[in-house]
């Protein structure tokens, strides 16, 4: 069949043009096969990465029509049948080296930042570790990650904050936090770090990472698990929720946990989020005081809720029942997770 591709060409990573190529490929061809045909038969200067062509090495992440894909996992036939000419460009949120090749170093730097290795000082001996299969379920999905960068390419938070650890590194972190072989002291220290600036609370929950992951890792779910683990380990004292209240003005304190805690407390009490409490309880009353001029500007724009309004749901009993149910479910799932089964099969 005949495939036509529009490819963003950038010989030096800076300036770029879009070129159109038409090549003949077999019916079974993937986007990677089509790129190979372009490189072999049309223009040998085209640059892209490839290796395994079976969706496991993670080399060929790139964008098709503005969204990240693995070239080797993307069939061309449906596009050809639909008469669609896709536009191929490099992944987002990473500097371009040439054509479809991006500099992955910022990606790897974040992987390195989460101490990506198991810390098992408690089990140094070379002996058989007996481990419940069901515990491995906690990390089954995260262990599927091939580090292709597709999630990072589409991450909205990273677009506004390039220092955000991002979905791949946080999923990698959960792979160790959720591993029962990891020492508790190490796990606690990891969670503390992940609650810091540019950590788990900076995710905007857009779910683009889950949508674009070619391996079903679901990085956003991993970030949610890290949040849940944070609360389980005691959000109040260790990770800043209460210490914030007395933090001196101007010190950097991570308000992520505190912010989430306000939602919890407020909805548990009245069934609603009490927005007037949100800012002072998140960043502390002293810091909040400095934000009063901003609050006044918001009020003038009609964007501040009436502080005298009673924040209580009409049927608060139902809310309380929901809370009970949630807590029961959380107990049930504690340490169990509800994960992809591929690594976690026990024999009959």
């Amino acid at each position, binding site marked *: 069949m005949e495939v036509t591709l529009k490819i963003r060409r950038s*010989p*030096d990573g800076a300036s770029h043009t879009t070129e159109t190529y038409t090549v003949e490929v077999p019916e*079974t061809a993937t986007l990677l*096969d089509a790129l190979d045909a372009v*490189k*072999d*038969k049309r*223009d*040998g*200067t085209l*640059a*892209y*990465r*490839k*290796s*395994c*062509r*079976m*969706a*496991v*090495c*993670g*080399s060929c992440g790139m964008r098709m029509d503005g969204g990240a894909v693995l070239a080797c*996992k993307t*069939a061309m036939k449906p596009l050809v049948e639909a008469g669609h000419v896709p536009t191929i460009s490099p992944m987002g949120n990473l500097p371009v*080296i*040439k*054509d479809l*090749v991006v500099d*992955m170093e910022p990606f790897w730097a974040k992987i*390195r930042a989460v101490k*990506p*290795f*198991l810390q*098992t000082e408690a*089990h*140094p001996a*070379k*002996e*058989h*570790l*007996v*481990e419940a*299969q069901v515990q*491995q379920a906690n990390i*089954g999905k995260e*262990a*599927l990650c*091939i*580090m292709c960068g597709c999630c990072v390419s589409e991450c909205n938070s990273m677009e506004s904050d390039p220092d955000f650890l991002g979905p791949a590194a946080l999923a990698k972190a959960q792979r*160790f936090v959720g*591993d029962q*072989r990891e020492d508790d002291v190490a796990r606690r220290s990891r969670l503390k770090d992940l609650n810091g600036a540019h950590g788990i609370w900076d995710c905007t929950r857009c779910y683009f990472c889950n949508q674009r992951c070619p391996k079903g890792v679901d990085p956003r779910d991993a970030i949610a698990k890290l949040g849940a683990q944070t609360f389980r380990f005691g959000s109040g004292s260790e990770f800043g929720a209460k210490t914030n209240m007395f933090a001196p003005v101007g010190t950097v304190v991570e308000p992520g946990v505190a912010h989430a805690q306000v939602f919890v407390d407020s909805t548990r009490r009245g069934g609603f989020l009490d927005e007037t409490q949100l800012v002072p309880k998140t960043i502390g009353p002293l810091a909040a005081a400095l934000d009063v001029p901003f609050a006044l500007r918001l009020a003038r724009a009609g964007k501040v809720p009436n502080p005298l309004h009673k924040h209580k749901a009409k049927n608060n009993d139902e809310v309380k029942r929901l809370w009970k149910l949630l807590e029961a479910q959380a107990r049930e799932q504690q340490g169990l997770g509800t994960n992809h*089964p*591929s*690594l*976690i*099969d*026990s*024999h009959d």
Partner: protein
Amino acid sequence: MLRHDVVVVGAGLAGMRAAIEAKRAGADVAIISKLHPTRSHSGSAEGGINAALGNASEDSPEIHTFDTVKGSDYLGDQDAIEIMCTEAPGDIYELEHMGAVFSRFADGRIAQRPFGAAGSPRTVYSADITGHVLIHVLYEQLLKYEVPVYEEFFALDLALDGGRCVGVLAWDIVSGGVHGISAHNTILATGGVGRMYYGTTNAYACTGDGMSMAWRAGVPLKDMEFMQFHPTTLKSNGVLITEGCRGEGAYLRNSNGDRFMAIAAPNAMELASRDVVSRAETKEIEEGRGVDGCVLLDLTHLGAKKILTRLPGSRELAMDYAGVDPILEPIPVRPGAHYHMGGVDTDSDGQTLLPGLYAAGECACVSVHGANRLGGNSLMETITFGRRSGAHAGAEALANRNGALVAASAVRDADSRIRAIFGRAGGQRPWQVREELATSMYDDAGVFRNQERLERCLTAVGDLRERGRDVVVDDTGDRFNTDLVSVLELESMLEMADCLVTGALARQESRGAHTRLDHPERDDERWMKHTLAWYDGGKVRLDYKPVTVTRFEPMVRSY
């Protein structure tokens, strides 16, 4: 000038395991690799890694040793095989402590599944993505030990000085330019050369670069005629469907629906050794009982639950690349080039005949696989012999390092070689030569060989080596020039094809994966010996050396 005590070329399982061990020995070690480590082909391994843990049924390193010796068709060196099988369980537990996520039995012990030609369910696995799990675990350890990696550096040649390897010359793919990287000891861990075949499970990167560097430096390559053809690969792009499918109970059927393995291996059936199954399949296809050039791998009777939990990766691959859901219908498969038993001749510490040069993993030939490798033994080899090479190279460097450097003139010469490629005009494009080579090798140096086919192939390879010297690039820039890389890879493949076919033509017997229709029997009298292929003015010169036999005298091999 970059310099280290130990430099490892290649960052797959063997390379990373070697680097970690050299670092533990106290050496200053670095890796150079044309790919980022986790992109290496080891990550494509699916089914598992063999160690006699005895978790599924009674097993021992002795039984593992015997199975491997028999599987090798008595060409494996029995001392090396015994080392691997004895050290394998400890290596598995160490991987476990590093963080490997292995599949488990219900009681929490590491699960083991049956694999071809194994006397016991011995294959440790992580569903059907074992290589993926292990390559990420070793990369994690590489970061933990802070081993520097020169990523996307293409190794061009070994640097020699006074009869010793003193490092490598490498092209920086990202920015261009040749670097000399000096090392007291250099460890090659560059993998195989499956890409010289048209139908292959191997990644694009498997082009034999390390083996060809060693060969050009005068180091002999051993048993190069032994290329394993895996019985279950997809027709469209050669992708592997793991032996684990048959381990879990899948059948092989011909166009009549018959389980044809009943004739070739009445006892082991689908779980006979890979060479046996590949020959049986090729026979079915050539005698007209195939389905569109394939036979059928039938998993439908296993049921959705078993397929989804134990073989989810295989299902995904079949759906993506064959358009078939194995829960509902059988997968068309055929033999494809999979694993090179041959490689750089080493001892059981990875040492080659060239002082300062080691090799480990698929690019090496210790030899533990002999004429035919058992499924699950290659991952084990990368770990055990990667570790042993790293330990030896690290300790030896600490004891004897003398500060030898890659000569500046060698760097200039290598740079001139690259510039000369940029300056060529009038030749063919690399893909034209590559496609002809791959077709010729698949047709004439494949599962069934004879003198006529091999002579035709050798003539073709000779002609292609000539034309390969003139291939031209479109891209003459320094920045991320993959066109240049494909020229360099083609040169390696052409040289390795010459070694393979020359060895195959000379070996007048059938042993393991080397099947001569004109010499159908194994001939221990004349041929129970290793082939050595030497570099001789650009041509291949053969001689031979004996096989090490310790406990197991050759017997008839049947399954």
